[in-house]
């Protein structure tokens, strides 16, 4: 297979890694404020504390890999979506320091303010990501020189907004399932209830996005039928409290959906709404074959090691979380 195609797939894989892993701690942030400050929130934080910063590295690795493998895509997309990117970064900073500092003081004021920071920034990140993905599916006004000139407000048109809401709802569900897997009793029951509501909302949003976008290719139809069926199965499994299996399914939905979006835009990174001749594809945007080869060696050595110790650390912290 061509190196350009391999690297397009690897970028999508990194994005999937970020979505599936950081997705559950971001999603938990969405629901976080609906839980009791004193008893429940510390447990929810404890459930994600060992993992969130490692999960976030998938985003950084994705950014680095895009820079190295497809510098033109990296440059055009990030400079073109400047304000959106800044919102994303601000969200990431606030979430990071919120998670870091929330439990450093016992005062109610201190904790509830950081709680708001954690929750608002998690919602912001998921929303901006969803909206960005929606815009990539629709296409962007990229010109002959590879510059995207667009007012940030024009990114928030109906379809991208549906994708933004889908992102928030779906990953909130993903997070609730993760939380249910790590807790017991009333908290677990509440998280399962929330996950069920969000699963139903997600079914509606998947269907809505499907018809609004109007791509009736076989692959897209199959994937969306799968989404609906899988979410229905998930609703059943949640009734049976099978959280472990449920999170595998929600992870699988995210994986296939992102892969489907990648397949839809392939071989382009950015489809131009001005003229399809200006599309930024995996050949025009890429680094030299030599760099793609070097990067493949780096990924070939590095990623298996990363996966090995990630599994080790997740295993070390398996099981339910309890108050100290």
């Amino acid at each position: 297979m061509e190196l350009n195609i391999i690297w397009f797939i690897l970028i999508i894989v990194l994005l999937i890694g970020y979505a599936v892993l950081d997705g559950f701690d971001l999603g938990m942030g969405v629901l976080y404020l609906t839980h009791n400050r004193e008893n429940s929130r510390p447990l929810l934080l404890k459930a994600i504390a060992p993992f969130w910063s490692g999960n976030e590295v998938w985003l950084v690795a994705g950014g680095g890999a895009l820079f190295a493998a497809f510098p033109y895509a990296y440059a055009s997309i990030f400079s073109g979506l400047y304000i959106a990117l800044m919102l994303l970064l601000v969200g990431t900073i606030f979430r990071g320091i919120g998670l870091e500092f929330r439990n450093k003081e016992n005062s109610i004021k201190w904790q509830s303010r950081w709680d708001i920071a954690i929750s608002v920034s998690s919602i912001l990140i998921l929303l901006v990501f969803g909206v960005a993905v929606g815009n990539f599916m629709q296409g962007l006004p990229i010109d002959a020189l590879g510059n995207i000139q667009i007012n940030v407000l024009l990114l928030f048109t109906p379809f991208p907004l549906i994708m933004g809401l889908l992102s928030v709802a779906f990953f909130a569900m993903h997070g609730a399932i993760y939380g249910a897997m790590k807790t017991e009793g009333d908290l677990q029951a509440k998280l399962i209830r929330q996950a069920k509501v969000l699963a139903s909302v997600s079914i509606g949003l998947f269907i809505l996005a499907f018809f609004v976008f109007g791509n009736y290719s076989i692959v897209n139809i199959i994937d969306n039928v799968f989404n609906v069926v899988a979410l229905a199965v998930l609703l059943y499994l949640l009734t049976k409290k099978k959280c472990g299996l449920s999170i595998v399914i929600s992870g699988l939905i995210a994986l296939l959906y992102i892969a489907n979006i990648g397949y839809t835009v392939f071989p382009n990174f950015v489809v131009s709404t001005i003229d399809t001749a200006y599309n930024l594809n995996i050949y025009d945007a890429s680094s030299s074959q030599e760099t793609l080869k070097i990067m493949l060696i780096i990924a070939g050595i590095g990623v298996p090691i990363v996966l090995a110790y990630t599994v080790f650390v997740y295993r070390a912290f398996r099981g339910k979380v309890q108050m100290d």
Partner: protein
Amino acid sequence: MDVELLSRIQFALTVGFHFLYPPMSIGLGLILVVFEGMYVKTKSKKFEQLTRFWLKLFAITFGVGVATGVVMEFEFGTNWAGYSRYVGDVFGSPLAAEAVFAFFLESTFLAILLFGWNKVSTKTHFVSTILVAFGAHLSALWILIANSWMQTPTGFHIVGSGSTARAEIIDFWAMVFNPSTIERYTHTVVAAWLTGAALVISVSAYFLLKKKYEEHSLASLKIGVAILVVASVLQLVTGHSNAVMVTDNQPTKLAAFEGHYKTGPADMYLIGWVDVDNEKVYGIKLPGMLSFLARFDCTAPLKGLEEFSPEDRPNIQVVFQSYHIMVALGILFLAVSALSLFLWWKKKLPNYKLYLWGMSILFIFPHIANQFGWIAAEVGRQPWIVYNILRTKDALSASVSAGEVLFSIILFTLIYIFTLLIFIYTFIRTMKKGMDIPELPINKVEVI
């Protein structure tokens, strides 16, 4: 203001704030390995408590470092699209390698350090500490490789011309080990050790002044001093090798360090002011000393700024002053090292209040040296973003307006100041809460 200046301000601001934290994480990483190593070896409660205490402070530092650092990975694309397109083929891979080889390692094993005391064996915990410290050092290596390539680019060729021209890699290892990588990496890592050591010294001195955890604090003070002594002496060596390297590779930067205008033997100033208009320096100088440092010969001629047209020179005043502040602080660290060693030898390290007071603010000075050293290195590279290859003004994002950059500068300034204040507040609170030590003095606990 134009997009170029605003983009430079934003990059300097974000990377400057970020650069407060990684040197502490790298230095404290090393110190944690020492503390926990002592604990694993001797099973001493004292070192276990020191490890747990410093781990808390390390975690805060690391967390803020991560939060402020994610920005950097994206900022090349957002504000420097021209740069990203031109050099991505060469410059992107070390950044990606940093994430894959180092950042994952640190972030993942940090979980074991913080939350794993009861989940894994003592040995596994210690190995995780080593891996986190190793990851921090490795992370700095890849970043310094990328940054050094901007200073002394090698291993590539230029393909295409005009707006489609770009640098493409021809030799990965020549890029990795470009002429300044080793010198700049060693100088930066030793600076980080010094930063960590100074922080440990300051906190220990504070406790000794307050007569709290005296036995612990004396032990940590000694370890801090030992690392400070080694680091400040090593900094003489790496500082010198950097001067030689800069002489060989970046003559404009070297000339700017000392305001050396006329080609010929070069002087070294202890303190001075550059009269940029008249191309003169006023101050106290050691004649021929720069030539001696660079070439071991006081009369060796060095290229002066006169050989470069004004549009190829950096801002001389900024580079000159930054460089001299860094050097002066290097000398201060040597003096502090000598004094501390003397007191240690006399067994009077914790005896003098004045010494302890001084030491309790020592932590600030490595940060000042780090910031100014970095300013001297990076402003000294200007007007090039990649030395002699690509000018900074040609590296910008065409689709970003001055208004947008101004907006993000204001946003980042507010957030980074807020973050710093929260960091300082939390660090001090955590420090004052102190160590988890049972009521009885430590030596009695051990007897029981």
